[in-house]
């Protein structure tokens, strides 16, 4: 990564911190500590499950919301504040700006997710009093959630490169929802014939497959995640995010900023 991309990424991270994005950690801590203390009293034998399920779901949802709402403003905010012109008047290429923004937001989300993961483990220790070997799988689930963020950030940036913040939010959130249903979409494609089948199969492969990146429930039950799945999901997320970033670069390179 060249120095210019690194500087843009670092500034994006600093800006997110200045925008008090990491304040969501307070809400997360309150949510998790509340669950750890109270769920045991209102339910039966699921204290540990709730801490893992709730913790990882919160990591995922908080991150997705941040990715969408910060991601959609990454380009448009810079244009609106006219800071983009200052940046581009320096020896910074447009693609470097997009890639730097992507790394900056992804970095923010990784830091956020890691802090939350520490919180999940602390709550788990409080509830179970000790760790077992299968708890290490939680790290795999957190890693998959980070891969989800990589995809969502890239999509938000793609939409942000040509659309208004509101429309970008709608598009990204819609793709997040559709991505969660992607396996249903594939099942639907398998049931159709002819042109519809071709079309629906194409759609199923174009939308992000976020359900494959969700291993929260099996991990909560202590089931191991196959290494091959980790490798394949990593490659898939990188390829998909790369595709979206390339799309964003192509659009932004040709965009008239006057």
């Amino acid at each position: 990564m060249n120095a210019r991309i690194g500087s843009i990424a670092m500034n994006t991270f600093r800006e997110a911190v200045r925008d008090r994005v990491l304040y969501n950690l307070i809400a997360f801590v309150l949510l998790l500590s509340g669950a750890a203390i109270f769920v045991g009293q209102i339910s039966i034998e699921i204290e540990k499950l709730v801490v893992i399920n709730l913790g990882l779901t919160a990591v995922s949802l908080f991150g997705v919301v941040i990715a969408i709402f910060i991601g959609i403003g990454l380009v448009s905010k810079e244009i609106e504040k006219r800071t983009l012109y200052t940046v581009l008047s320096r020896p910074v290429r447009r693609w470097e700006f997009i890639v730097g923004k992507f790394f900056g937001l992804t970095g923010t989300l990784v830091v956020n997710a890691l802090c939350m993961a520490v919180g999940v483990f602390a709550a788990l220790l409080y509830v179970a009093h000790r760790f077992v070997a299968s708890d290490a799988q939680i790290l795999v689930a957190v890693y998959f959630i980070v891969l989800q963020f990589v995809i969502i950030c890239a999509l938000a940036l793609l939409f942000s490169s040509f659309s208004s913040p509101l429309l970008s939010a709608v598009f990204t959130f819609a793709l997040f929802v559709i991505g969660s249903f992607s396996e249903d979409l594939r099942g639907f494609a398998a049931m159709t014939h002819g042109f519809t089948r071709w079309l629906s199969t194409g759609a199923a492969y174009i939308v992000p497959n976020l359900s494959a990146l969700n291993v929260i429930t099996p991990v909560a039950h202590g089931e191991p995640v196959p290494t091959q799945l980790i490798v394949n999901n990593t490659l898939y997320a990188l390829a998909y995010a790369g595709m979206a970033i390339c799309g964003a670069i192509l659009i932004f390179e040709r965009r008239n900023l006057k």
Partner: protein
Amino acid sequence: MSPRTRTTITASILLAACLAGSIFFLTRVDAMRTTATLDEVLFINSPKWVKRLSLGYDGLMADIYWTRAVQYFGSRHQAQAKSFNALAPLLDITTTLDPKLLVAYEFGANFLSPNPPFGAAQPKQAIALVEKGIQANPNAWKLYYELGFIYYMELKDYRQAAEAFERGSQVPGAHPFMKILAANMAQHAGDMQMARAVWTTTYESSQDKYIRGNAVAHLRALQVEEDVTRIQDAVTAYGKKTGELPPNMIALAKAGLLPGIPIDPDGHPYKLTSEGRVELQSPEDFPFATKGLPLGYKARAPRDLNQAVN
């Protein structure tokens, strides 16, 4: 006082007043609404739709639905309700969202099968729930045990119970008692002995306070039933021998029909009424007892079965 300070104080007072007002009016609204109707409402009945709407976060949704099922059962049980209409659908949704949530099958079957107020009197639904659990978790021997338990306790179907225990005994790591239960059930051994074996296995195979408390309460009730049957036989024998009812337990002991003054599992002596009936001194301490109860006595659901363990 500066205008800014004045505004701050006024706004703070108004905020507190409005908060208190909203809480007050909400309690009034709650009092006007029929909670029974709210309890019974399941906004989405289809487990598949709930799973889809969970956007992949089905584990957390399952935990929420399971907590809801526990709360629903607990509140109805406490209110001595006769109907538990939403219980089976809640458990179905829970186990569709997370088919590996063993606790929902084990406890859910215990909630569904017994008669009110201890359960929903729905043994068929309990069996369907446990069979669903076995399909998703074929190596969970406790589910076969639950199945055999329901067939034996609620339906008195010894053949099906023996088959369930037998299937469970073949699962690796199953409790060794499963084989004995299967054999005894097949032979249809004495009910009292069989019941004791089943509840002892329940106690030994669980670490949960609720399940262990329930097992202890049933074992205590079985002890009472055995004692009362034995004492009642002694009363009958005394009547045949002397032509009159025994005046008290001492008379039975003196006649050599009892080894001493019989006491219940809590150490209290059994009472002998003037009509020759054997009764417990504190029947409320034995919620599952079917013998030794005063005439017209109606058993109440135990408030906290955990107490039975301690």
